[in-house]
């Protein structure tokens, strides 16, 4: 059980819950619910994405962050909990993927190669979301060309095919396609992870501009703290299906309250020096979502673990102006 959604945020920074665009309450995503070994990819997660902000979900393999993205789009089985977009409950909609699209949610995936039909010319892929509402093929093509220019591609790209484009260019095309139906919330599911860092930053610059100019809200899913540090206004750190820390980006990065957040920060290869104590490095391998450790799921890797951590699962509670789930959060003091 987590703290009641809405009240915690109001306590934190006085922002009214009415600004909340996407609300996830006590979400549990389970694959293979009726099979012999159901996998709970996401367990009791509550999050809020506020209009005009960028919430970053950061975690490694098995954290459940991609499952949350899919659950929002109706592509993952929700066992419990609700997902509400602008007051409308997506989880009980009859056709969840269509409902998500109609409510203004779009998603950009990691691999631009498989996200674009190799036999369609670029403009057709970009215009695909418009098929239902814009009957004229010429109109669609024109709108696709305008979108390509918005994402920094010359019109001539519209008649080419995906294999003729570089990775970064293809990703711009998928972004253009996501913008076609004028969405309100764009989910970026590891959208820049497959790109070289020089291209990655260019795409982040583009996304930043688009956000301001089109009034978008982002849900950024990533394992890369570097990209998150640049883009996020709010961060939720996930491990093995649970949120372990959440709050404003600057606070979480500058003074992490959870040891796993420390570990993620410590592993970012920077040249400007570590900002966390290397002794927070985790031990061993990431756990198995199908068989999570008892108590605190991170305790098997945590350098700060005590007996209580193995026995009792910590609850999310406010600590130093953000929420975190760690028994020892109060004692932790950063250098």
């Amino acid at each position: 059980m987590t703290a009641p959604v809405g009240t915690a945020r109001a306590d934190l920074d006085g922002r009214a819950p009415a600004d909340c665009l996407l609300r996830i309450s006590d979400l549990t995503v389970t694959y293979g619910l009726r099979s012999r070994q159901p996998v709970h990819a996401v367990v009791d997660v509550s999050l809020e994405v506020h209009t005009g902000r960028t919430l970053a979900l950061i975690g490694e393999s098995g954290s459940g962050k991609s499952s949350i993205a899919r659950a929002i789009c109706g592509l993952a089985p929700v066992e419990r909990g609700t997902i509400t977009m602008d007051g409308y409950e997506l989880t009980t909609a009859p056709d969840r993927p269509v409902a998500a699209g109609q409510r203004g949610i779009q998603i950009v995936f990691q691999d631009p190669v498989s996200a674009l039909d190799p036999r369609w010319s670029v403009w057709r892929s970009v215009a695909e979301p418009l098929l239902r509402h814009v009957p004229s093929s010429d109109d669609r093509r024109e709108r696709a060309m305008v979108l390509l220019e918005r994402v920094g591609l010359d019109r001539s790209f519209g008649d080419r095919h995906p294999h003729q484009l570089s990775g970064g260019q293809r990703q711009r095309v998928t972004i253009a396609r996501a913008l076609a139906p004028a969405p309100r919330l764009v989910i970026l599911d590891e959208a820049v992870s497959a790109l070289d860092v020089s291209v990655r930053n260019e795409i982040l610059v583009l996304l930043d501009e688009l956000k301001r100019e089109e009034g978008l809200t982002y849900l950024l899913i990533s394992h890369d703290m570097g990209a998150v540090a640049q883009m996020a206004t709010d961060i939720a750190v996930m491990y093995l299906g649970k949120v372990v820390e959440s709050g404003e980006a600057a606070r979480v990065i500058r003074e992490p309250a959870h040891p796993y957040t420390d570990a993620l920060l410590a592993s970012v290869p920077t040249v400007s020096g570590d900002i966390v104590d290397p002794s927070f490095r985790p031990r061993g391998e990431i756990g198995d979502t199908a068989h999570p450790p008892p108590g605190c799921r991170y305790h098997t890797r945590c350098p700060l673990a005590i007996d209580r951590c193995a026995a009792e699962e910590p609850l999310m509670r406010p600590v130093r102006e953000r929420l975190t789930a760690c028994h020892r959060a109060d004692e932790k003091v950063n250098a």
Partner: protein
Amino acid sequence: MTAHLAISNLRVTLDRQGEAVAVIDDLSLEIQEGEIVGMVGESGSGKTMTALAVLQLLPRRAHASGSIVLAGQELLDLPESELRQVRGAKVGMVFQEPVAALNPVFTVGAQLLAAINAHQDLSRSDARARAVELLGNVGLPEPELRLRQYPHHLSGGMCQRVMIAMALAAGARLLIADEPTTSLDVTIQDEIVRLIRRLAVESGISVLFISHDLGLVSRLCHRVAVVYAGQVVETGPTRTLLEAPMHPYTKALLRCVPNLHEVGVVHRGIPGTPPLPGSLPEGCRFRPRCEYATAACQAPQVLEPRADDHLVRCVRALELADVGRAIPPTPTLPLQGGGS
């Protein structure tokens, strides 16, 4: 002191529809014994081809010329039977996707033993003991159990440790790691890099570490070579390149490295894309993307020493020396000797 590995004027061409296209052009690099050298560049810069050239595992349509000398032995044009004695025994290689790089229908033990027995004549029990020792050395818990397991039972990080053990199983003194951590989770990435460092320091092996991530390379390597469009554009000790980079491309790469001190600030990347091997610009290959390009850049650029132990391929290097530098770094890992 003669270098452990000396690559001189390496040129690798690929046959594309009858035309020979150069993917590596006049690349020279030296690695001393016990040194960890990083090779940094974007996708398509020729980094992987360089590694494959050392092992003479280039694809069919590729041809290499120049010179690659490993421990005094010229590798180019060596007959296949002698190359087999070099691969595994003198140089070991670790690839990018560790789970895919292991044979899915054989146990880890079977593959590791094959690597051991390929170059040594040990009794069965000795070989097995060595296998367990190797797995323990790379930090795998329960090594005997791992021998019986199949690759799909292991995580990416564990598979990469197995790969490293296999690469060093026959006592190779040079390890080439081609983007070994790119597909791994970040906390595991960090562990693998530190493992490589520990192995290098403890046994004195040389390492060629290839990556597109300058930050990662800077944490591990003594020296760095920055590669662009098939050529080395800057090379020198890591600290020098980080504190006083001279080539505009290196400076641009440094700007792309994440900086956790500035939350909420989006950094620019490098606009444009690297040129394709078949369509290189005239003169300096970085010119189309360089913010400092002038008329002088229309001539082909030469790699020349510009300072002590610091080679740069840019005619304006000294002129621009103080322009566009990144924040002076304060690395916490000591870069010379001694691991952590």
